[in-house]
């Protein structure tokens, strides 16, 4: 009886796996690519990272039903679906990054370091080292994203707790503060020593500034430099209806990708990037009228995208599995917009930007779509209707691309198998 039951169970698994493989876990992908649902309902999966053995760790925004906020997923039988799920920690957050046997994870205030053993299991789940503590987290843009360079430095995004640095945040007519006092301790990327314990602001360095909120960031090993994706400001039409209508607000400002060298300034809050004029435009809170330029000391974006799509993860592809065009190019997970209403929302996909010699070599394109679960080309009207929202990206040791979703807690695995 047991055998029959087992056979039935295995057959069921096989059928499920096959139907999943046929519909690519609901995703639309370029020719030759396949997707599987690597994991499901693990909790609000923000960023993800993968060890050299292929073990995936996800940081959850809140502890899941099991009360865990870091989830470990292993695919022991290598069928593209995780078969071993464990977890630990009880603090919410976004950032997670593994380098060798060092696993970094963030709360909204701190950066922690866990040790992995030879099987990539956590050795000290209850007693991580505190690498950085006491970072500012004031509701808006409080999550801390991290990445490491080749010298064991940790780069932490500290988002601005504001939309446009107004005296009264998100209040009509409230002027922008000059200079913006937020920039001393937020609105930029801070650099810390990845092995030193208990660092505070004074031990780190403000590596780059003028960034409203960066959720996606990655160290590009081809250029040996930091790249970030910024979430642009909201509500131009709400606060300045005489300067911007609904349609203009839906397209302004561009979401931007920057290469940030030490000391660089991307211009927030004084300017925003207009994708049509291709200029840095003075923010209306600082006297702008939609045309006046500003930001003489600010850098220009490396690439830019339609407004409000929320680039939540950035990954430079270094694998050998995908076709040549993807090598060293940038994948970006767009969480999906809300500030385009009343117009339809945009994003809810993974985009790709080809790179050559450290610069974009072509237009961006949609790589993986269909996360929202809507039929055909139907756009998301209200964010809560989207089934999945892409949030994190990671590259497996075999060159597969993993995408996390913080809505239903899915992890998608994308492979190239023509």
């Amino acid at each position: 009886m047991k055998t029959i039951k087992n056979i039935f169970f295995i057959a069921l698994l096989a059928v499920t796996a096959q139907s999943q493989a046929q519909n690519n876990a609901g995703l639309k992908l370029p020719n030759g690519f396949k997707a599987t649902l690597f994991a499901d309902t693990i909790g609000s999966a923000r960023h993800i990272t993968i060890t050299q053995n292929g073990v995936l760790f996800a940081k959850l925004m809140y502890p899941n039903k099991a009360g865990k906020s870091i989830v470990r997923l292993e695919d022991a039988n290598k069928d593209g679906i995780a078969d071993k799920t464990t977890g630990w920690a009880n603090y919410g957050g976004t950032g997670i990054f593994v380098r060798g046997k060092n696993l970094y994870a963030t709360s909204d205030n701190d950066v922690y370091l866990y040790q992995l053993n030879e099987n990539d299991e956590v050795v000290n789940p209850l007693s991580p080292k505190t690498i950085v503590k006491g970072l500012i987290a004031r509701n808006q843009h409080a999550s801390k994203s991290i990445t490491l360079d080749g010298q064991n430095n940790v780069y932490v995004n500290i988002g601005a707790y504001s939309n446009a640095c107004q005296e009264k945040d998100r209040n009509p007519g409230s002027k922008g503060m000059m200079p913006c006092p937020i920039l001393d301790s937020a609105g930029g990327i801070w650099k810390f020593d990845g092995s030193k314990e208990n660092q505070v602001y004074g031990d780190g360095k403000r590596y780059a500034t003028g960034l409203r909120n960066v959720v996606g960031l990655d160290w590009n090993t081809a250029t040996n430099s930091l790249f970030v994706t910024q979430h642009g400001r909201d509500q131009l039409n709400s606060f300045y209806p005489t300067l911007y209508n609904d349609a203009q607000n839906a397209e302004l400002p561009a979401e931007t990708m920057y290469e940030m060298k030490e000391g660089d300034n991307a211009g927030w809050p004084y300017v925003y990037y207009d994708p049509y004029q291709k200029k840095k435009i003075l923010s209306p809170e600082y006297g702008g009228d939609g045309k006046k330029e500003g930001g003489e000391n600010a850098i220009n974006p490396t690439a830019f995208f339609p407004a409000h799509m929320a680039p939540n993860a950035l990954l430079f592809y270094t694998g050998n599995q995908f076709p040549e065009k993807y090598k060293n190019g940038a994948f970006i997970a767009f969480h999906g917009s809300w500030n385009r209403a009343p117009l339809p929302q945009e994003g809810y996909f993974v985009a790709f930007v080809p790179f050559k010699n450290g610069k974009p070599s072509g237009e961006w394109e949609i790589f993986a779509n269909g996360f929202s679960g809507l039929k055909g080309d139907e756009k998301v009207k209200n964010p809560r209707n989207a089934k999945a929202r892409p949030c994190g990206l990671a590259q497996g040791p075999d060159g597969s691309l993993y995408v996390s979703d913080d809505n239903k807690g899915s992890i998608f695995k994308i492979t190239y198998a023509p």
Partner: protein
Amino acid sequence: MLHKMKVKYYKYCFIFLFICAFSNLVTAQDLVKGKKIYATRCLVCHQADGGGVPNMNAPLDGASNVVGNNISRLVSIIKYGYNEKVALDGFYYSNAMTANPDLTDADIANVLSYIRTSWTNKASKITLAQVQVVKRKK
């Protein structure tokens, strides 16, 4: 005699109820005004379906606070804004709510009435009198 008194009593009752009804009445026209305010001020964050944005902008449709009885809190949030992480029905929302100092008490009553009776919400409408009793607490 008794019969006559009964009629009189009913009459007064009816007049009393009539006055009550009218002093509390939120007309269909008020709801239309409320809808218009919603479209120009609230919709961009709280969305056309009142569903809000996960983790950022709190939902209004089906939200216990919104259909609940703490009217003064609702009025205060609309008037003065809100800049704290809010816990609502098991989730947290982090975005700052814009203040609306230029809305009249009647505007606030209208938009609250619209919100409390739209989508799946079936709460009571809010009268001008209910808004007027709320004083700024700060």
